[in-house]
């Protein structure tokens, strides 16, 4: 028996197609749940799991758009399910289709293995390397970083990424070349290239070069279009290309 919250009248059923399966393959299964006035896609998935399919696998944590763990493909687009209202993606009477994030291996149902995504952050040298203390010690002096400087503004523009993988799942280049680093890892690299306290500029620029790096980006900007934080990884990648172009031309890199 479905429960209807107080003050809400029972409404039509919402049809939901959910991808069920694992790494070996799977298929869509159809469910019907009560359509509500205010309902996020994460609410829908939770409702199905609690009321109909206890073994439905999916991932979430904060439910308020802070943790970045609930991203899935909703009606063909990667989104945060917790911040996506059903009425924003499906017209009344229209079905909802929920799949696991694209471009990542599926563990089960709606849960993907994020390891390749974060491995690429490491490959793009996404860790801060203090210039003044290469051994990881705390530098003796505070670095002075003017907030209005051009480099700091470039870094600030990309710093709010929470690693949800929406851009990665939306990227055509990742789909074509599984080695491609992807938007999030290079956005991270660009914030560090612009961090005046960082000492690993040359290695990082080398790491994001070439056919698996920024030079394969076509600037189609799906990452920028879909980023739930309104970041602009496409411009970050363009910045890497520009920096690498001049550094190569003037021989500032090997």
């Amino acid at each position, binding site marked *: 028996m479905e429960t209807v919250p107080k003050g809400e009248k029972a409404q039509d059923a919402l049809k939901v197609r959910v991808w069920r399966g694992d790494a070996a393959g799977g298929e869509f299964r159809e469910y019907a749940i009560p359509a509500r006035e205010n309902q996020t896609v994460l609410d829908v998935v939770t409702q199905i799991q609690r009321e109909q399919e206890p073994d439905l696998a999916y991932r979430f944590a904060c439910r308020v758009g802070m943790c970045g763990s609930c991203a899935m493909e909703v009606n063909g687009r990667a989104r945060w399910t917790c911040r996506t209202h059903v009425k924003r993606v499906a017209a009344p009477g229209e079905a909802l289709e929920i799949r696991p994030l694209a471009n990542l291996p599926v563990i089960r149902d709606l849960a993907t293995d994020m390891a390749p995504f974060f491995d690429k952050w490491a490959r793009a040298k996404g860790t801060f390397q203090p210039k003044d203390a290469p051994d990881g010690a705390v530098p003796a002096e505070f670095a002075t970083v003017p907030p209005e400087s051009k480099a700091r503004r470039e870094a600030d523009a990309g710093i709010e990424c929470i690693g949800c993988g929406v851009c990665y799942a939306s990227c055509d280049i990742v789909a074509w*070349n599984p080695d491609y680093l992807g938007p999030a890892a290079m956005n991270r690299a660009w914030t560090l290239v612009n961090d005046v306290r960082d000492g690993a500029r040359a290695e990082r620029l080398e790491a994001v070069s070439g056919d698996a*790096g920024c030079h*394969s980006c076509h600037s189609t900007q799906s990452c920028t279009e879909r980023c739930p934080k309104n970041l602009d990884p496409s411009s970050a990648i363009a910045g890497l290309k520009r920096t690498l172009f001049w550094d190569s031309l003037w021989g500032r890199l*090997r």
Partner: protein
Amino acid sequence: MSAQAGRHLWVAQRVTAMFLGVAVLVHLVTIMVAVRGGLTAAEILARTQGATLWFAFYVAFALAAGLHGAIGLRNIAMEWLGWRGRGFDLAWLGIGLLTAAFGVRAAWGLYAN
């Protein structure tokens, strides 16, 4: 191919594109200016034979075009056909040089004969 080589190819393609942008303009404007009032093969040859600067210009043009085109085709083949690896890279280098050689041969024909 190493990341470094990939970066150099990318830079080479951009630099050749910049040169080709200017070179194509020079090429087309020269044709339009030269052809006004009609032009015969003999008149063309009279101007190009021994014109070392024009010869150098078209050699650079042919090299840039061959290189630029081969790098671009390599990218397309990698993405659309999955043609990756050393063998394919060498084949594209060959195709680029061959394309350039056709252009250089044509320029030499106008310059030397």
